[in-house]
């Protein structure tokens, strides 16, 4: 990664234009050409430095359900429970974390009412209580990652 890549990452985490030639418009702001910008974004995506380039959608505003949930899983059953939880297509992410609540996962559903069903099904299959922690408020995120 060089100075141009850093400039792109630091300045283009938002505000990409909706216009006829958006890469050309954004490139002008950065003092580079349209071709260079497109090539650099392509490379940053291929290298995995960017996970995506485009619109970031607000999942709940699209009418779906979304929650964060946790389980307290006995160590001996950890792999089995992970497999049970991961088998739900509605489970988008699942992380092991260092706490008594040692499994944390995100449930995303097309219909909001499906969240409670998935949680009940996970409880029935695992025999464990799910700690459901849907967000009650989201706070404005001011600044962006600087590299």
């Amino acid at each position, binding site marked *: 990664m060089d100075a141009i890549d850093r400039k792109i*990452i630091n300045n*283009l*985490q*938002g*505000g*990409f234009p*909706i*216009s*006829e030639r*958006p890469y050309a418009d954004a490139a002008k702001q950065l003092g580079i050409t349209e071709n260079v910008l*497109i090539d650099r*974004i*392509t490379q940053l995506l291929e290298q995995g*430095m*960017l*996970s*995506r*380039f*485009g*619109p*970031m*959608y*607000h*999942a709940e*505003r*699209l*009418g*779906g359900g979304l929650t*964060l949930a*946790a389980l*307290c899983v006995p160590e001996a059953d950890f792999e089995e429970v992970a497999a049970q*939880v*991961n088998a739900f297509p509605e489970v*988008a992410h*699942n*992380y*092991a*974390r*260092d*706490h008594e609540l040692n499994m*944390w*996962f*995100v449930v*995303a559903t097309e219909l909001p009412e499906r969240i409670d069903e998935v949680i009940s099904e996970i409880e029935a299959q695992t025999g464990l209580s799910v*700690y*459901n*922690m*849907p*967000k*009650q*408020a*989201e*706070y*404005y*995120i*001011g*600044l*962006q*990652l*600087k590299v």
Partner: protein
Amino acid sequence: MIELTIDVDDRRIIQATQTGLPLTPCPYHTIAEQLGLSADEVMGRLQRMLESGIIRRIGAVPNHYALGFKMNGMTVWDVPDEQVDDLGQGVGQLDFVSHCYCRPRHLPQWPYNLFAMVHARTQSQVEEQIQQIAELLGDFNRGHRTLYSTRILKKTGLRIGK
């Protein structure tokens, strides 16, 4: 912020763009061709979704881990309910916080109601960040923990707009 309901064509645009914009000089025209819409229609709908908050922003989504921010901690705090919104706004402004939410407690096992995700290159930087949050919360901080992820068990992108 205006409320906006999305229709079938909006959903098709969401599906076509949620994994990224085409890397072509006229990406909105490329999408329009794929969907059989006019480019003005695509741009107009994206603009409306951006203004109404359905699109949070358009641009580069960095991969924190690949960029060297290998330490990520889920910091969780127990603060009074009456102050959580004010405090959350403040914590959300810190440049190393990528997400900041209020979530329900589950007493007695889980007393924490304010969640802030932090990212850094080293463990000691994460500890400094936690200290900065603690200073900002002051006496309202009645207890906190930092949960580090020890393993990714599943990671599929959120797929929406089906």
